[in-house]
């Protein structure tokens, strides 16, 4: 375990630790472009050069290993001047597209220049011209002039996805990043190359020209696309709605979490934010015959409660379909209300989406974030039980159904669900997005999406993770927790919960599996990551 000094601070590290890693343990970031903790060392940007006593040349801190007695200085005049010059070299052929470049505001050339550059440009020669604005696949746009040839994208596609799309052609200052002619960047993790590109060479087509990054508010959350539970930041624009084209969520970025997704997220998760702003149910509604008519929450709650009261002696004729999309807190309260207080025992778990494909990296077949949470609370999805239930619906033996977002018409296409559902006496839909089934329900209660509330999900490994509220609920929707509380109060139950926090503290005491919430990762993994606001 070598002990060394970096900028006059002592530190002891594991053998094999590089100086750049040791500096991070001490809390400071040595500037870099090509170094990424999740990829192999390239050592080509030369930005992380530092002074090491007894070594005549500056050393790249991403490669040099800590040795006992080593003395490193990262802020000497020589190092600072070298950084200035490295930046100057990187800008020699850089097109300075800032006014039209999406990376502006989160560009490492800009950021390091402000920190380390700050001098008059003396470059006055023609620049090397390369390809610009080339879509290299459905998700990523390439601008080779902006590229600083750090090779992060090449290494990512070689080492992480192992799909080898990128290459660097030619040599010298005509070196150019690109794909094999005719090939596309189309693997399931393609969007990650945009994250790791320090400049605007690789940009997201989905995000192109949407919103300047300094208008984005960033909130810690957890992806709800599958049971992996990749950590994300929801990046929303509420300041300049005129730029949003009706959308509040501008993009999703992965957040470093060593225990689950490291630095990465799959494309489905990354681009899966559209349902937060599209196709939402905005108001509570009632449908008797004809199209649904908008009603107040007061009325909606009252009528839902009367519906339950009608079944008080006929509990076998009503069923509740919980969803593995619901948070631990929502499920906990749902169990309290439906099982404990109302005494119903026909409570099922039904996923609103079909199982998808799985891979040996992040993507899980189960496209729900909280199946494990539901199972811990005693709810599991059994094919046979669900079929039995649907038989009861079809046969008319079941008269009431309370759904949590499931589109039964689309899920059970082999059955004539529309007809069967129409025959029900009491059909309630509590969910975020409208679908074929929601339009048919007697009562529609709009719930807030995961982005508009807070709570916890339990991933398939049993890891509990907190997601935070990024937006106010759209329209007049309300959090599931809130809706359940309102129902409980209207039913006159003894109900001491008012918000998610109340639920969470009791839940953690009563359910040991929900006690350990996985900590968010340390302050930074990449330079310039803003500390997110909760």
């Amino acid at each position, binding site marked *: 375990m070598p002990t060394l000094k970096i900028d006059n601070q002592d530190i002891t590290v594991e053998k094999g630790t590089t100086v750049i890693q040791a500096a991070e343990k001490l809390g400071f970031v040595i500037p870099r472009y090509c170094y990424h903790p999740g990829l192999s060392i390239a050592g080509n940007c030369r930005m992380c050069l530092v002074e090491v006593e007894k070594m005549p040349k500056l050393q790249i801190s991403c490669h040099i290993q800590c040795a006992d007695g080593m003395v490193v200085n990262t802020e000497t005049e020589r190092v600072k001047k070298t950084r200035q010059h490295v930046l100057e070299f990187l800008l020699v052929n850089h097109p300075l597209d800032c006014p039209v470049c999406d990376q502006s505001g989160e560009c490492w050339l800009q950021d390091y220049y402000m920190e380390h550059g700050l001098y008059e440009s003396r470059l006055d020669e023609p620049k090397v011209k390369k390809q610009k604005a080339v879509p290299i696949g459905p998700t990523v746009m390439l601008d080779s002039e902006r590229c600083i040839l750090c090779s992060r994208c090449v290494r990512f596609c070689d080492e992480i996805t192992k799909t*080898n*799309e*990128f*290459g*660097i*052609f030619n*040599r010298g200052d005509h070196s150019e990043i690109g794909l094999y002619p005719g090939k596309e960047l189309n693997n399931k993790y393609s969007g990650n190359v945009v994250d790791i590109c320090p400049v605007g060479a690789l940009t997201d087509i989905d995000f192109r020209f949407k919103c300047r990054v300094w208008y984005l508010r960033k909130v810690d959350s957890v992806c709800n696309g599958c049971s992996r539970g990749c950590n994300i930041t929801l990046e929303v624009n509420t300041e300049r709605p005129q730029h949003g084209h009706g959308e509040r969520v501008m993009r999703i970025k992965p957040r470093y979490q060593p225990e689950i997704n490291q630095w990465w997220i799959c494309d489905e998760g990354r681009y899966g934010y559209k349902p937060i702003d599209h196709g939402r149910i905005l108001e509570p509604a009632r449908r008797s015959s004809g199209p649904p008519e908008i009603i107040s929450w007061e009325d909606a709650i009252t009528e839902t409660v009367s519906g339950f009261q009608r079944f008080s002696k006929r509990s076998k004729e009503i069923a509740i379909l919980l969803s593995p999309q619901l948070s631990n807190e929502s499920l906990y309260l749902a169990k309290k209300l439906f099982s404990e207080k109302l005494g119903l025992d026909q409570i099922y778990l039904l996923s609103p989406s079909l199982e998808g494909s799985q891979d040996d990296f992040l993507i899980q077949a189960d496209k729900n974030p909280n199946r494990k949470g539901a199972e811990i609370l005693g709810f599991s999805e059994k094919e046979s039980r669900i079929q039995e239930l649907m038989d009861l619906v079809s046969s008319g033996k079941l008269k009431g159904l309370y759904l949590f977002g499931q589109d039964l018409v689309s899920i059970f296409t082999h059955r004539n669900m529309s007809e069967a559902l129409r025959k029900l006496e009491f059909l309630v839909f509590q969910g975020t997005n409208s679908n074929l089934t929601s339009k048919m329900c007697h009562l529609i209660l709009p719930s807030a999406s995961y982005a508009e509330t807070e709570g916890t999900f339990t991933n398939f490994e049993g890891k509990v993770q907190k997601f935070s509220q990024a937006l106010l609920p759209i329209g007049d929707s309300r959090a599931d927790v809130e809706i359940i509380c309102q129902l409980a109060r209207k039913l006159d139950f003894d109900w001491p919960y008012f918000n998610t926090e109340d639920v969470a503290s009791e839940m953690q005491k009563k359910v040991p599996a929900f006690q350990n919430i996985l900590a968010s990762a340390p302050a930074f993994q990449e330079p310039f990551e803003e500390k997110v606001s909760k």
Partner: protein
Amino acid sequence: MPNEILAPELKAKADKIVANYEERRAALLPVLHLIQDSYGFISEKAELEVAEYIGIPPVDIKEVITFYTLYHSKPCAKYEFNVCRTLSCSLAGQEKIIEFLENKLGIRVGEKSADGKFGLNEVECLGACEMAPMMQFEKEYVGNLTERKIDEILSKAA
């Protein structure tokens, strides 16, 4: 995919080359030389076949071909004049040689004549500074170039 470029006879030669190296990929440069010597250039079809033969992604082949100056993706001229332009040859007047050839051949450096017969290139030091100014022509080094020498070569080039 049936091999058009790496036809059986050529493939047998390639297999012999591969046997010289502990790792298959190390045979790449010699195999590319083999293809270029046989076909005059390395076509896209050749790139794909070699990629499969060696067992590496095609993008790696493209990287190698664009990195090294001796591999050509397009057919060369029948007669290529590769004139050295580095220091000793520059001191010996290589620019005048270039001027002379450009006028004689009717093309500029980097171009090929319309009939595909002649090509003119400037290259870096060929390791023959004692005979500056010099060029490489059909594998041979031709040095102490004069206008007369070049005329002689041109007259022999059919």
